């Protein structure tokens, strides 16, 4: 892999019923990246993640995940999907949910090592006492941590997070971001959000996506491009801290 590039997208186009969702996206993720993809609702953020994960095929363009086809390379990716879509009455407890992330092929069983990794991942997210609890008895924040444990349990090289702080209060959001910062020493982290306020002091780089990729680089200097992406004036404030993180936009 050249220049530590782990994900490489070239000239990606994606259409949904002839309606362009992504247009000419050129985008790469490097080892140890800590990147936020921001943009409005319907801007193509989740679509982009799904293309990286090989769940959607772009209409044009080339995707490389760890130098391979996404369906091969995605085994090294941990994924946290958008929260809203789970059936909480499904008969599964915390431990059994997380061990699903260790799946390794047909006609096998979960090994002792798999079980130890689950305990380990639950300890990292601070949920190990809840391992026997059914998912309907967790709070939103707790469930989010459990899903994060499922994403990291196979020790991925890249963590993809779709709206990881949606539905969390600001205190919970802060603790989730601190958790990401802890994890960022072990793996590249890319998360998607439409919440501009979520770009905290922790993120190093930003990509602005609204059908096209408007900006991709360090978070400073992104503001003008962000307004272009959102088509309206944007103010970026740090998370729970009453001062600006990014330079003020000069008028």
């Amino acid at each position, binding site marked *: 892999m050249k220049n530590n590039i782990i994900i490489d997208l070239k000239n990606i186009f994606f259409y949904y019923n002839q309606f362009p969702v992504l247009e000419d996206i050129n985008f790469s993720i490097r080892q140890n990246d800590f990147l936020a993809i921001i943009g409005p609702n319907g801007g193509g953020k989740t679509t982009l993640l799904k293309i990286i*994960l*090989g*769940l959607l095929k772009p209409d044009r363009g080339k995707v490389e995940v760890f130098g391979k086809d996404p369906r091969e390379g*995605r*085994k090294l*990716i941990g*994924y946290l*999907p958008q929260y809203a879509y*789970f*059936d909480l*009455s*499904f*008969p*599964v*407890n915390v431990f*059994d*949910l997380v061990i*699903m*992330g260790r*799946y*390794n*092929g*047909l*006609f096998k*069983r*979960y090994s002792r090592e798999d079980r130890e990794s689950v305990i380990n991942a639950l300890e990292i997210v601070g949920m190990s006492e809840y391992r026997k609890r*059914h998912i309907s008895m967790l709070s939103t924040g707790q469930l989010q941590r459990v899903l994060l444990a*499922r994403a990291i349990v*196979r020790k991925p090289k890249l963590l993809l997070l779709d709206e990881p702080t949606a539905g969390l209060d600001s205190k919970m959001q802060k603790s989730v971001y601190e958790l990401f910062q802890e994890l960022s020493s072990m793996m590249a982290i890319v998360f998607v959000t439409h919440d501009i306020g979520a770009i905290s002091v922790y993120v190093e780089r930003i990509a602005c996506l609204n059908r096209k990729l408007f900006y991709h680089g360090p978070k400073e200097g992104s503001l003008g491009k962000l307004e272009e992406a959102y088509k309206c004036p944007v103010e970026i404030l740090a998370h729970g801290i009453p001062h600006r993180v990014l330079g003020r936009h000069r008028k």
Partner: protein
Amino acid sequence: MIEIFQYEFMRNAVIAAILVSITCGIVGTYVVIKKIVFISGGISHAAFGGIGLGYFLGVNPIITAIPFSILSAIAIGVISRKSKLSEDAAIGIIWAVGMASGILFINLTPGFAPDLFSYLFGNILTIPVSDLYIMLIMNIAIILIVVLFFREFYAASFDEEFSTITGIPNRFLYLLLLCMIALSVVILIRIVGIILVIALLTIPASICRQFTYDIKKIMISSVITGIILTIGGLWISYLLDIASGATIVLLLAVVFLTSYFIKNMVTAVKRLKDKKSI
């Protein structure tokens, strides 16, 4: 109750009730937790086409119902995933097409169609031994498939997308599950008939999932519940001399309602006690 076992048709009926309950407990659990009740409804009604084909060709309708319902299961699965047609539209179309072709086949068959009613509404008392063997073989097939792919079905039922990423062959498993439902439908047609199949697939698992969050326990307790209630329904229908299929379904429904109220009462009482102790 013992005296009913002196009749061979009653012994066969009891064996059929046990076989059918094993299927319903296992496959029904997936149907309920994966919320594919109406896909199963579509498959079971489409199976009527296979019954009609059996009459038309002059062979055992159960034999022709097997490929017919498997094909319609695959059709629903493929159409709903691949085309832009939504899943419920695909179900509706296959449902109606299957029934219509069944009616046409029977129409084209010269003479009167004997015991057609028993395929529509079931008649556990007329099951021949040969059908019991077919049911036994299909039961073994279903149990083998579930044992082999238990982890995969479980993960894919909870979160298809994530399980795809971890390498589970989702599309194949989904079609396999639909085929298992198709097999179960064929097993069930003899007992409760095409129109009432859905009750046996959904009610036992719905009763049991209220009381445990462990999928294996849901399956096992659904099997036991199914055995008790189908034999119970059979017994009641014998005593009162009424239709067996409908009696079994209504007994299941009564037990479901009762268990639902008991479950909610227990929960409410627990909450009250917790409040008092604080």
